[in-house]
């Protein structure tokens, strides 16, 4: 009996969780975009020699590179998505 009485509350809780979850997601969307851009810039700066921009001291680059899996991954993803930057921005600002 008790379990049945509890049900509506649980539904409310689940609803609220989903509701706030959506807010949470929205709240970090810009931050995540900014973070991705910064990670991309960081990797690009270090691998500048590839695209012809002045690179930081080579010693520094080769010391930091082994720890940069994440940033290089992001840089590669950004390069792939490059043709649709406007699309991504439009999606983020809900311009359809």
């Amino acid at each position: 009996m008790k379990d049945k009485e509890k049900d509506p509350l649980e539904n409310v809780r689940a609803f609220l969780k989903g509701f706030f979850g959506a807010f949470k997601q929205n709240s970090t969307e810009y931050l995540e975009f900014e973070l991705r851009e910064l990670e991309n810039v960081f990797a690009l700066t270090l691998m500048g020699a590839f695209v012809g921009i002045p690179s930081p001291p080579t010693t520094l680059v080769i010391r930091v590179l082994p720890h940069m899996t994440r940033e290089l991954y992001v840089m590669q993803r950004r390069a792939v998505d490059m043709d649709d930057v406007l699309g991504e921005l439009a999606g983020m600002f809900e311009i359809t």
Partner: protein
Amino acid sequence: MREFFLPKKGYRVVFFIGKGGVGKTTSSAAAATALAERGYRTLVVSLDPAHNLGDVLMVKLKDKPKKIAENLYAAELDMEKLIKTYLKHLEESMKHTYRYLTVINLEKYFEVLSYSPGIEEYATLEAVREILVKGDEWDVIIFDTPPTGLTLRVLALPRISLIWADKLIEIRKAILERRAAIANIHGEQEFVVGDERVKLPTKEEEDAVMRELKKYREEVAFVEGVITNPRKTSVVAVMNPEMLPLYETERARESLRKFHVPFNMIVMNKVLELKGEIPELRAKLETQEMVLREVGRKFPGVEMVKIPVFAEEPRGLERLRELGGIIVEG
């Protein structure tokens, strides 16, 4: 004894710079021999890829300091070997780290790196740093350097590297701040590569990249601290009484001033002194006169020592000691 050859705070570092072929190696070997003779534990190191320090000292040298005489040690650094071992070690550690990433053709990147502009300067700086870290083993460390252009870039590197390190630390901080903000809302973030899950660091002390950046900054700041300290470092320019070395010495002085590296003395090498008149050499002697006058005018406050042209090249300890005496004595 000239002040700037003497160890004041711990050890003394002396760079002999100058155009190719003016006699840097001979002068530095001579100064080292004279200092060793006066009781200072002296190390003379050749950073020039085209070594001839061993030829001047008439011994075969390697990259580890070799005892030449009482208090005198010498070494020739093998830049090519340094660069190769450095990149090889790195390539292996990176191949391991990036076994999931096929995006970047690492071998190609390393090919680029080993020929990348500046790699020689970085390797030279790294070698200089390693010697300076163990500087307390010596009273005086004398560097026989490659021709001016490369040396000036090496001496400028610490400052430039500091600027880069600071910029990268700034971006890294911004990245970590954003990661921390996201982790505050969503909890710990993970990054999945292949079948490995890695926690994304949000704090400076747990981020390997930040740790490397800060360590590098510290190392470079140490070299910068030594080479800009007039109580530790002196630069001696070697030149011949000709116009081109004069222009080059002037430019060197400007660059050194810009990077706050002390410039102390000019060794005017191969000065021709004739007893009789030789018409064929008149033009050369006139240029020599003019250059000597100009040096006096353009480098006020910088000491100059004149070394005459010797009938034969000064090689071997005995001749070097004599020549070194002229350089280090006041």
